[in-house]
């Protein structure tokens, strides 16, 4: 997964578990950037009666580094509050929820947005409402037009915000990846798949018909960049108070102490795939500015060593690179510093020498008229790893990069294996269960529980 359930501790705390971060110049509003942080992974749409919601006891931040030091110069902070109209019913809704003010909606959640920057803390919106979860055609009719659309709010600084349930937009064949890397399009080449006589098969999207909760912002570029520095670094964090007590008289949980970061996400798959099990939860507590301590896992990724073992004879050049213990300067640039000028013609998202896992977006690059889901690898500099759009195929891009495709950019004597440029988990946006939207918040209408009861 991009970062769903990626570390042992946070996998047991879904409301604080960040799953994906997106940052891109808005295709329909190119003087703005859209920043999206997703939380609460793998939601079955029928998960009632207590349908999914953000944590009232969690602080959610979208952080922006404007000068390359790996620390937040601007933070958009989100705090949620749940209100129950009638505590004497077990029902989420007592009739159709036809509008955000419907009296039939029993448990609703509002939120406050605060911008924190060098001038101080500025509340941009209070009591903003999240839409209900998409329950089904009787409970939440006309979901997008009546409920989700009206929940897009204008903030006092000219930005737009949305917080609520969305269809999962990240597509990935988890079933094959975590079954000993048995990528379905290449099962016949996998050492175990070959032994079992498996034949190549189409990829299967494990997140199809599942939902997430999104926090989405659309902000004028001028509000999130420093003068003369068009590249920003973006990541999200979730924080909880240090102490959590169970067993009060009313059955409530009581929290105490200062907030501490428990979840972090910048580039997709970094904590998931590169950081070893014993350090994943610690990684989640650290700021990007301290990522030098993890740089060894980027420079020498475990997966690069596994690919030649899982696919014998398919990656001889990668195997030689691994055997020579060559530091992967390509991955360090893509994930930790940004790509300097001169590596990819006409492109850079370099932020300086500080190694920090952030999603780096060069905001001066306009949206693509014909986007390529492989982003920069596909010749489209408006896509990952220049930020990340909702449809970018980050699994294939990172598999190929780790397999050595991008190492040739920093060492012209290296010849990537032919298979490296073909690596994929066999999926495209066509494998989603519902399309992305053309406008903010871009992620699709969440699947309803009535029509997707067994997701």
């Amino acid at each position, binding site marked *: 997964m991009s970062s769903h359930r990626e570390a042992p501790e946070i996998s047991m705390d879904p409301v604080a578990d960040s799953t994906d971060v997106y940052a891109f110049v808005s295709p329909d509003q190119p003087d703005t950037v859209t920043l999206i942080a997703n939380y609460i992974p793998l939601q079955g749409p029928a998960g009632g009666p207590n349908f999914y919601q953000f944590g009232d006891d969690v*602080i959610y931040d979208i952080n922006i580094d404007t000068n390359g030091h790996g620390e937040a110069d601007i*933070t958009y902070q989100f705090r949620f509050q749940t209100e129950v109209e009638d505590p004497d019913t077990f029902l989420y809704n007592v009739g159709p929820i036809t509008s955000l003010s419907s009296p039939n909606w029993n448990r609703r959640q509002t939120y406050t947005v*605060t911008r924190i920057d060098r001038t101080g803390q500025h509340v941009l919106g209070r009591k903003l409402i999240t839409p209900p979860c998409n329950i089904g055609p009787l409970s939440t009719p006309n979901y997008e037009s009546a409920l989700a659309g009206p929940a897009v709010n204008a903030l006092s600084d000219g930005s737009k915000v949305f917080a609520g349930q969305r269809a999962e937009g990240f597509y990935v064949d988890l079933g094959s990846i975590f079954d000993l890397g048995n990528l379905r399009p290449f099962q016949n080449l996998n050492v175990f798949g070959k032994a079992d006589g498996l034949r190549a098969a189409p990829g299967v999207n494990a997140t199809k018909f599942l939902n997430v909760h999104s926090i989405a912002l659309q902000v004028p570029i001028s509000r999130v960049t420093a003068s003369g520095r068009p590249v920003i670094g973006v990541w999200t964090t979730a924080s909880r108070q*240090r102490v959590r007590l169970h067993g009060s008289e009313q059955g409530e949980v009581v929290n*105490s102490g200062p*907030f501490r970061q428990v979840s972090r996400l910048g580039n997709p798959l970094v904590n998931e795939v590169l950081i070893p099990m014993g350090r994943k939860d610690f990684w989640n507590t650290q700021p990007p500015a301290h990522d030098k301590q993890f740089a060894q896992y980027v420079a020498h990724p475990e997966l690069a060593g596994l690919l030649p073992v899982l696919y014998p004879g398919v990656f001889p050049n990668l195997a030689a690179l691994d055997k020579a213990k060559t530091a992967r300067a390509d991955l360090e640039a893509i994930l930790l510093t940004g790509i300097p000028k001169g590596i990819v013609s006409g492109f850079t998202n370099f932020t300086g020498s500080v190694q920090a896992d952030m999603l780096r977006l060069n905001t001066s690059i306009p949206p693509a008229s014909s986007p390529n889901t492989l982003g920069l690898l596909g010749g489209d500099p408006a896509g990952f790893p220049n930020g990340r759009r909702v449809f970018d195929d980050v699994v294939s891009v990172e598999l190929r990069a780790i397999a050595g495709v991008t190492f040739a950019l920093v060492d012209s004597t290296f010849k990537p294996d032919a298979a490296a440029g073909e690596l994929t988990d066999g999926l495209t946006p066509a494998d989603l269960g519902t399309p992305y939207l053309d406008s903010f918040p871009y992620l699709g209408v969440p699947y309803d529980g009535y029509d997707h009861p067994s997701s």
Partner: protein
Amino acid sequence: MPELDPADRAAARQADPAGAGSPSRRSVLRVAAGAGAAGVAATALGRITFPGRAEAVQARTEPDARHAAAEPDAASSDPIVVHVRDASVGDIEVFRGTTQVRVHDRDLAARIVRASR
């Protein structure tokens, strides 16, 4: 002595630049909890007053600056949670509202440990 995390070190330096505990920092820890709760080795319940000790040192960790505005000051009814990190050196954390105080007081730690049995 357990190693302090950077935030605790910064708070300790701010609270006690000399590192030995000025008279004003010599701890009189008042625990006047509306509701109590257990740390790893201790529970603070009801109104308890611990007399100060010469070796006691107190360091306050305020909320992260990014999170401070979102948090109201601790109310008098907020529970106080005491966590004895290492009784042998008197290393204690006291949580209230969104703040945390680090106390170093062997006698206090020993009394809490005794009270927990």
